[in-house]
């Protein structure tokens, strides 16, 4: 299997993503020609290529003094850069002077709806307008590195280059995220327990055999959902209810496999046999721990881990499996009024963004009827601050997707 996927998707054997994440959102300025957009992105990408080698342009001037050291390098932090393109780039209303002239928009590359009820997904809905951070953008660049400095510096260098050279690009915003070494999420449960093998991941990620979008062959789609968690609502639930909603024991991460109903009607979730009794994910974890078989009890089938992966024994490449390769980063920030905003930057890669939509909208067994897990109506824990789908072309010169602007 060939591998022309851009860096920044850490699916290969032995790869571990860095701890720090940024998603830089860019728009192409109005009335820019395709040629102008291509030249601008080319310059940004070339600068980022140097930056990945630790070369900062301002520290390596084009006209150095005679006694300047050369080259001057800084720690790169193992920076990786990935570029993706949104539906806006193809939009004639956003770009009356079309930027993309000879390439059709991939059919499922569309902007998230912001109007109407139950948007953008059936039960995962937008946050209140005053809290929303969402904007459709032409371009995203994902930065991942080991250090905060490396990802922040990448954004600053892009900004400097745009200003210095008057590039027809505009920074719309950026989002930040960090990795957790406890492998848990803000709701305290383990996250990202279920994993695929590297081969399975590539099958899930890489777009192949699609003549409708030849420029994307060997590439993928990035799904970005900035999900805010309502800790107050979550912590208001008793531990047992939280566990039924998640489908795992809160402390050990053990999957619940059956339900015992006591004489007084109390329901107790039973953990899988032989489950480890520590708070960390065992290595290697028991197979039933990673990927528990669909339980007979409908209460457990309604839990988050089963709703998010209903057809568990379908092969990952099968459409009915709806598998995606997740690479999420948590976030924490403070709003102007002092309220904390925290949650997960859900980032996934898949050859078909419809899979993400399907997981979130499909009913009755998938996540469509519920906001997070359990039987409807269940507690609302998550809301969406921002999000979108982006086409991620394969590696290419001078930059991935350059052919779009021909």
């Amino acid at each position: 299997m060939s591998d022309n996927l851009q860096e920044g998707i850490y699916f290969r054997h032995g790869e571990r993503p860095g701890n720090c994440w940024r998603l830089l959102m860019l728009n192409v300025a109005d009335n820019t020609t395709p040629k102008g957009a291509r030249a601008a992105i080319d310059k940004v990408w070339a600068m980022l290529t140097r930056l990945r080698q630790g070369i900062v342009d301002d520290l390596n001037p084009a006209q150095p003094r005679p006694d300047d050291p050369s080259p001057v390098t800084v720690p790169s932090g193992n920076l990786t850069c990935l570029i993706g393109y949104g539906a806006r780039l193809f939009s004639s209303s956003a770009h009356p002077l079309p930027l993309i002239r000879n390439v059709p928009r991939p059919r499922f590359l569309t902007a998230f709806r912001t109007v109407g009820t139950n948007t953008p997904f059936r039960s995962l809905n937008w946050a209140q307008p005053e809290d929303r951070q969402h904007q459709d953008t032409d371009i995203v660049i994902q930065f991942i590195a080991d250090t905060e400095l490396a990802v922040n510096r990448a954004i600053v260098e892009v900004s400097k280059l745009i200003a210095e050279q008057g590039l027809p690009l505009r920074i719309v915003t950026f989002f930040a995220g960090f990795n957790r070494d406890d492998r848990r999420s803000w709701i305290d449960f383990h996250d990202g327990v279920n994993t695929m093998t590297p081969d399975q991941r590539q099958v899930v990620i890489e777009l192949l055999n699609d003549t409708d979008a030849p420029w994307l062959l060997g590439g993928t789609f990035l799904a970005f959902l900035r999900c805010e968690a309502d800790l107050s609502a979550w912590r208001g639930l008793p531990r047992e209810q939280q566990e039924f909603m998640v489908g795992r024991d809160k402390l050990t991460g053990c999957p619940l496999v059956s339900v015992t109903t006591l004489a007084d009607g109390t329901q107790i979730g039973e953990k899988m046999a032989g489950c480890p009794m520590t708070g960390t994910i065992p290595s290697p974890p028991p197979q039933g721990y990673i990927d528990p078989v669909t339980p007979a009890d409908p209460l457990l089938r309604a839990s988050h881990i089963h709703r998010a992966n209903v057809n568990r024994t379908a092969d990952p490449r099968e459409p009915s499996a709806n598998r995606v390769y997740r690479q999420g980063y948590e976030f924490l920030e403070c709003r102007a009024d002092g309220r904390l905003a925290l949650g997960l930057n859900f980032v996934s890669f898949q050859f078909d963004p419809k899979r993400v939509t399907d997981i979130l909208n499909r009913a009755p067994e998938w996540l469509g009827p519920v906001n997070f897990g359990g039987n409807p109506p269940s507690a609302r824990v998550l809301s969406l601050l921002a999000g979108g789908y982006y086409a991620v072309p394969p590696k290419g010169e001078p930059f991935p997707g350059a052919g779009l602007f021909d």
Partner: protein
Amino acid sequence: LAKQPGNLTDLTGAGAQEWDEKIQSMHQDAIADAQTKHFVVQNASMTQTPATVDWDGVPVRAQTCLKSRSKAMRLSDWTTGIGDRGRAVCHEEYMEWRTVHDASGKITRVEITTEVQEYWIAMARHSPTKLLSLVARFAGEQSAPFQQVYGNVNPNGAGVTPAAREQGFRSMMLPPPNTRNPPRSPYNNGQKAICFLYQNVNALEAAVVLAAFAGFPHAAAVGNTGQLRPLTGAEAIASTNQNALDCRNSDPTIVGAIIGQAFNGRQVALDDPAGIYITNVDAARLLRPDNQTEAPEEWFNLQRGSASADGKQRFQRLVFEVPADLPFVVGDLVDSQTSETIDFGWQVAQLIKVGLYVRIGGNVPGSIPTPVALQPVANCAEQPGCSLFRQAFNIMEPPPPPPLAESESERPTRRASRIPEASIE
């Protein structure tokens, strides 16, 4: 007695009895052939709400083999003077549909069915009057002439046996044997109506046999950990004796789901009433022409089923159309996920999930996961079966003639001459 698909009651008396016997024998034969202990007939110990095993109803193999969703959409709606040929070639996911167009070519209605042919054959044998009435209703007609449903057999004629009715019904409402052509009857080849799943691969018996052959605790080793995991559907189809075809939406999903439960040592059964059901309709995905207002659920008219005591609906038919008093039709609606207008039945069919309801039972004594030597799974885009889709597409849209070779195209046009250019062969 076994319940009738969708909790319908079209069959009574001998018909209902025969349906029960059909379900029993279908299961017994499949279980005996497969020699499974895990796939069983539903029994009294299976008290919990059934689980849903569902999948996309659109024929994914057509898309995979043609390497193009747009080509697959065109092929799936292909119709000729003999009926819906695209349906005969493509619709293999236990869901078949027809599209109705207005004079301008816009889609005005999409009709989708998951009704199994065995049930209609039972009706044809025992309830011909009811069946003809149903056929007429589906076609929007006052009545349906029996000749177009039963051929030269008058089903209500004196002394006509159920076997004779079945023979006549099959000759009209099912595809001619050994062909990939639609049925002769306009009432089930899409010209006037669509009544039930006519493809043999979409028969209920095919699903039962498929599930029975999957009813084993097939397992694969997890690296070198000494642990086992259940085989996926695709792995099982490649590596074990299955009555299934990989690369469909349905087959590997069903196979994987059954194996998963068998791996856990559990019994599995099709829920009574056995049938193929519409499990979900993503109605909100379609927008009115204003590109903002969602199409209301009422426009998706679900029929031919009702809920069981478990609360789960068992619909088997869907008619999607815009009310006549509105100034637009289905073809003017917009798919919010793609921004496309609705030009193909596929675009409505893709909103539909279809599936089976299965009961999970008690443990099978002595069941232990059995490791299997894994064979490579199919390369779906290059599987031998792809040739059928490619051939059909090339008949529907013949490829342009190959361009002239460069040397020929660059050859200058010759002047008229008295000298003959070539001899006649």
